[in-house]
């Protein structure tokens, strides 16, 4: 920024409050973004430890380490922590940091609400994780909370519901903040179609969030009244229907899946053009493809319940609409590939993670199309094939995109370059182990191994051992990620304003110094 602009606005250049107050009363988008990201990293390790318990128990057939009840608590809590504690807050953290910088706004539109939506999360997860210590143990019926099983939990049941309500309120407020920031706070000249893809995908994600999180809130409220006030929403004895919960839940649940992947699409659409040194191929078609995926996400929920009782006509509808999603997703994969075509590629850590995403997310997409077929799903459902599918789209999909985003933007946040060798080692170890971990689960599922079991028939032993070794390797590799981040925060080679100088990335975030000043764009930049 020009010197004249900075001095003209000295009044806005207040420095952060000292000590804990800076964080408790934070209204600065960068501070709140940092808190979201740190929270997400902690939850990533908490949920990861639970996955280690699962993989340790499944290393061999028989019961070695934990009893089956605790195993079920681990699978349920692993899912809840990873979805609502790790992946979603990481994307909100990135949105907080990057959206104001990318649209040229001084801050998020509603800073106090921003503070509230972050600080709900530690309370929600304290509540959720404390269920591990209450009589009856933590929720153990799967993260989908199907009645009547969920109604039979001990004291953990109301705590689970209240925690979900808090997470929902937090997400809705976060989403409202994102939409208002994007629609009202763009710098002059930043038209909608000029917005970076990360901002676009977040705008669409935010609409999905406010459309479906309240549906989840409604569903869990009905569970609550069924349990405590003797209503019969899902109770067959009173004329209700447990199947209806599945419909309401998955009406939320499928858009939720895209809430966890659309911002990842945005990140990949930022990283690949930078390190290909070419503009994004088909940028406008990317926006339309994202919007199509978001629309389709509302009409495909039935593919989660093909075997649960559904008329043939509905199965046909949900099968075909699900397969239709492959079209806009194919457009995206094509555009990313075409962006690299004849580009001048270089393989810095963010690009490695983006390429890992591209290959491995596509594997998850293919197994998704297989699961969309009703007759095939009759065979695959409730097996490890499903586990392999959604872990491929979520781990080397969403999680790799988040890691790529951190490696892409962290020099802008801290002002330091990180240890490239360490980051590349982290990438290669993660990529090798994530495939050792999840690829054999396809074979296990096709061979008929059911999911959510602590013990299994002996013929599944070999691939389970391989998968567990991959799991431990992947888990340990993430310690390198934490080390790289901590080192980068504490010091390192100074990063320039553009950070990736020889790639010359485009976007407003690269026009301000590194580290980004506490207050940026207090005067709106002009975009031409």
């Amino acid at each position, binding site marked *: 920024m020009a010197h004249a602009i900075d001095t003209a606005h000295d009044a806005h250049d207040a420095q952060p409050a000292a000590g804990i107050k800076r964080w408790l009363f934070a209204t600065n988008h960068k501070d709140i973004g940092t808190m979201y990201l740190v929270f997400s990293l902690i939850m990533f390790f908490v949920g990861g430890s639970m996955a280690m318990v699962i993989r340790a128990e499944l290393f061999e057939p028989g019961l070695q380490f934990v009893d089956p009840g605790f195993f079920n608590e681990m699978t349920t809590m692993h899912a809840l922590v990873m979805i609502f504690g790790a992946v979603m807050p990481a994307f909100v953290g990135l949105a907080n940091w990057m959206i104001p910088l990318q649209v040229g706004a001084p801050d998020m539109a509603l800073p106090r609400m921003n503070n509230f939506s972050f600080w709900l999360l530690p309370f929600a997860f304290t509540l959720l994780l404390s269920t591990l210590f209450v009589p009856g143990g933590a929720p153990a019926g799967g993260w989908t909370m199907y009645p009547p099983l969920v109604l039979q939990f001990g004291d953990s049941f109301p705590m689970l519901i209240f925690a979900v309500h808090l997470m929902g309120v937090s997400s809705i407020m976060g989403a*409202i903040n994102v*939409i208002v920031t994007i629609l009202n706070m763009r710098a002059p000249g930043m038209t909608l179609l000029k917005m970076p893809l990360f901002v676009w995908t977040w705008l669409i994600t935010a609409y999905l969030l406010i459309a479906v999180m309240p549906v989840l809130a409604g569903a869990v409220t009905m569970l609550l009244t069924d349990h405590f006030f003797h209503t019969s929403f899902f109770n067959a004895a009173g004329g209700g229907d447990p199947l209806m919960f599945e419909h309401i839940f998955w009406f939320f649940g499928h858009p939720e899946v895209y809430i966890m992947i659309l911002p990842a699409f945005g990140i990949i659409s930022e990283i690949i053009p930078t390190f290909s040194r070419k503009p994004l191929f088909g940028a406008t078609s990317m926006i339309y493809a994202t919007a199509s995926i978001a629309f389709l996400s509302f009409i495909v929920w039935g593919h989660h319940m093909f075997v649960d009782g559904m008329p043939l006509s509905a199965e046909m509808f949900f099968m075909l609409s699900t397969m239709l999603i492959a079209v806009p997703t194919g457009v995206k994969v094509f555009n990313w590939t075409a962006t690299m075509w004849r580009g001048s590629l270089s393989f810095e850590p963010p690009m490695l993670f983006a390429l890992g995403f591209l290959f491995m997310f596509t594997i998850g997409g293919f197994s998704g199309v297989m699961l969309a077929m009703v007759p095939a799903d009759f065979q695959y459902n409730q097996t490890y094939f499903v586990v392999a599918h959604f872990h491929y789209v979520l781990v080397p999909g969403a999680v790799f995109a988040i890691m790529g985003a951190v490696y892409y933007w962290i020099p802008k946040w801290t002002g330091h370059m990180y240890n490239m060798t360490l980051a590349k080692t982290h990438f290669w170890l993660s990529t090798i182990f994530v495939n050792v971990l999840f690829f054999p689960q396809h074979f296990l599922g096709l061979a008929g191994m059911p999911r959510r079991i602590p013990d299994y028939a002996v013929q599944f032993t070999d691939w389970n051992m391989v998968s567990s070794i991959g799991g431990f390797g992947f888990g340990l590799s993430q310690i390198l990620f934490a080390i790289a981040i901590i080192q980068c925060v504490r010091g390192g080679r100074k990063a320039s304003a553009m950070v990736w100088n020889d790639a010359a990335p485009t976007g407003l975030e690269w026009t301000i110094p590194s580290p980004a000043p506490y207050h940026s764009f207090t005067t*709106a930049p002009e975009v031409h």
Partner: protein
Amino acid sequence: MDGPPRAAPPERRPHRKLVTALLIIAGGSFALSWGLIPLYTVFSRDLGVGNAESKEGPEAVHDRIDASRTVTVEFIAYPASVGNFDFRPQVAEMRVHPGAQYDVDFVAKNRTAGALTARAVPSLAPQDAWKYFHKMRCFCFDPQNFAVGETRALPVRFVVDPTLPVDIDRLSLSFTLYDAPQAVAH
């Protein structure tokens, strides 16, 4: 990217209107989750699935008895929780003529040492046949009180519609008897 310094901070559009609109969308979604319940009932009835069909009142009685045709109706009784009730139909099956009215009793016995309240939910296979199966009288859905050791017959009166498709010659009527301690019997 940087323009000349501006005299005044750029005018921001007011947030209040947009935030209100977004809160209304969120509120609408919350309402939709509750609206899905009647919607589900409508869909279930139209598609002939679930037990939405079974609460119907008696429809027009078909006095046209089709004596040339015989349909077998099987009766099945499930106690939802093992041990509280003995629950079974008095006959395993009946051979009936469409259009004629039949009575059958299900017998339930309280096996516990206390009074019980129970509620029965019906189901019919094949599901598509619900609209051809008319229950003129049924104990289903109403709370039933049982004293200690009480045995009681629970009657059903039904008519199979003469328009029942010819490819259906066997119907299975089942009842699941649930403990319903919170229900109040009338």
